[in-house]
């Protein structure tokens, strides 16, 4: 057993599943580190289990009893003598308590310190810290709002439209948009109730709501000595109900001056949080190019490969090296080319209803400029218990046009049968004139779906679902 102060490790337990578990195993292998997979009984034949050097079953299918089961996961590390744990994204990746237990058990948690995770996980505290650090923050309440009366006062200062958000939350739950004072009372109470149900904490805060913002995030990488590197921005504005669907880097909207200002703000934010390891500072950018801190994600992001592709830099390998206390090569100062990621989900492409099942036929795209991150194989089962991400297709080209052409080609040749996937959605988005123009905001998907709906009413014969093969 490694002592708590000893950082070096040779075996890493990957506390996740799906494509990110595969991704982490790949990075470990590139560094010559042994790997231990964990799995639920629903994932017995999953690719991450097949790929890892060892695998330990940690529970039944339900996530809380397996991939979020802290005692079983720590115990799995102990019996397999894994000296480090990579949490991936989701599950326990932003659980400060888990990171603390890892440290207490002498296991290196591959990520920032429990204190940093805890701080940035509390959205209100995080914002207060950012204000102190001089990072522009979305105008809103300082700290949480206890009563409706207090909320109405703050609201009149900020102005409408505004949004009420759960302090402990994320992912759209506990959020309410208010466009006028007379809606405030209802919205405030609903938000509190939802926050309590979803996160066990009814605290809420209030922010200005932007109508057509872009969601832009800066990738940071902190070294143990306090050095913070940035790897430019990712544009994640293509979202549906706060779920990112397609990401690209660089943003077609961001100027060099804005990029530099946002990167400086991300560095200030990271330094204020004593940030070590890979992280992401998320900003809203309004149409006038003003940017505002939203939150910091203290883990690797789903969309990290777009940054990796244009910087030719392995972020997960860097995570491992930082955790090992080994020197990392600084990322190149400037990216080259353009990269797009499409998240291929096991969902109906137009209703987004999950479509779990067995993949009866699989042909993955390839060739120049195409990277695939997936745990799918022909015969693999997509269980109903977890998120619906089946594969990430990343297309890189010398410019945005080439990246789009390659993505269209790749998705056109990709065949997944046995489940429905969002490939047809992505193909239509990639051909959409607004998307092609690069002038889109977080309301793109809503407008895109409305245009589609309208068109299908006018031309019912043309609007048939082209199916997963289209």
């Amino acid at each position: 057993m490694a002592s708590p102060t000893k950082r070096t490790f040779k075996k890493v337990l990957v506390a996740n599943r799906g494509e990110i578990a595969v991704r982490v195993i790949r990075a470990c292998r590139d560094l010559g580190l042994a790997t231990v997979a964990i799995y639920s009984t629903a994932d017995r034949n999953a690719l991450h289990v097949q790929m890892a050097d060892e695998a330990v079953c940690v529970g039944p299918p339900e996530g809380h009893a397996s991939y979020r089961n802290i005692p079983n996961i720590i115990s799995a590390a102990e019996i397999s003598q894994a000296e480090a744990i990579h949490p991936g994204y989701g599950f326990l990746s932003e659980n400060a308590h888990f990171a603390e237990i890892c440290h207490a058990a002498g296991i290196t948690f591959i990520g920032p310190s429990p204190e940093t995770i805890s701080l940035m996980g509390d959205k209100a505290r995080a914002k207060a810290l950012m204000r102190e650090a001089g990072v522009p923050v979305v105008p809103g309440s300082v700290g949480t709002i206890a009563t409706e009366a207090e909320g109405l006062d703050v609201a009149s200062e900020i102005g409408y439209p505004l949004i009420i958000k759960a302090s402990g939350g994320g992912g759209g739950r506990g959020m309410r948009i208010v466009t006028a004072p007379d809606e405030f009372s209802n919205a405030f109470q609903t938000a509190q109730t939802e926050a309590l149900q979803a996160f066990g904490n009814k605290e809420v805060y209030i922010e200005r709501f932007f109508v057509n913002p872009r969601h832009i995030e800066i990738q940071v990488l902190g070294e143990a000595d306090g050095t913070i590197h940035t790897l430019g921005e990712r544009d994640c504005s293509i979202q549906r109900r706060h779920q990112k669907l397609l990401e690209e880097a660089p943003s077609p909207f961001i100027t060099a001056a804005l990029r530099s200002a946002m990167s400086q703000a991300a560095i200030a934010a990271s330094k204020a949080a004593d940030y070590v390891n890979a992280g992401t500072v998320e900003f809203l950018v309004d149409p006038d190019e003003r940017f505002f801190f939203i939150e910091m994600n203290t883990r690797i992001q789903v969309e990290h490969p777009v940054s990796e592709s244009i910087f030719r830099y392995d972020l997960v390998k860097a995570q491992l090296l930082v955790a090992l206390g080994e020197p990392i090569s600084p990322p190149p100062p400037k990216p080259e080319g353009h990269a797009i990621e499409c998240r291929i989900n096991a969902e109906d492409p137009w209703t987004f209803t999950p479509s779990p099942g067995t993949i009866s036929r699989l042909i993955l795209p390839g060739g120049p400029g195409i990277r695939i991150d997936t745990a799918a194989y022909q015969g693999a089962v997509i269980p109903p218990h977890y998120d619906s991400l089946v594969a990430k297709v990343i297309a890189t080209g010398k410019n945005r046009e080439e990246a789009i052409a390659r993505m269209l080609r790749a998705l056109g040749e990709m065949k997944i049968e046995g489940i429905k996937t969002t490939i047809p959605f992505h193909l239509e988005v990639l051909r959409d004139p607004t998307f092609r123009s690069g002038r889109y905001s977080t309301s793109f998907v809503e407008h895109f779906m409305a245009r589609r709906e309208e068109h299908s009413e006018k031309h019912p014969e043309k609007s048939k679902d082209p199916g997963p093969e289209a």
Partner: protein
Amino acid sequence: MTNEDIKEILGLVREHNLLSFEFEQDGARIKISRSPLATGSFRIAQEGEIPSPSDSGLSLPSPSVPAIRSEKVRIITSPIVGTFYRSSSPDASPYVEVGSPVAKGQILCIIEAMKLMNEIESEVEGTVRAFLVENGQPVEYGAPLLEIDLKAEESA
């Protein structure tokens, strides 16, 4: 009977590798003839080829081990991940031995996890038939630990 019905039947005939198939609705007649050369389906062949997921010497719950081997035997599996011990300490005597009678709720063994000793109790009454894990061996969730011959009334 629609064309859709027929299509489905044809699919089934092929899937089941039938040589012939007869069906009559009112007289309730069924006749099925299967190819003697029928091989396992593709999926089965593939499952057989998947490499064992673990090389670590952990005790694995094999997908083919049923929870109950026969009507008279119950297999006790591990509810948690940890290290299997037959006694509370190296000096103590084992909780049970092969042949020991066990009562419902009786401690059978412990699983150490995160320095905690988790006592595993018997859910059934019977006699210890066999240990499936060595003392001190790591076990994962669902790993078979020991077999209990059920008392007559339990197995009925």
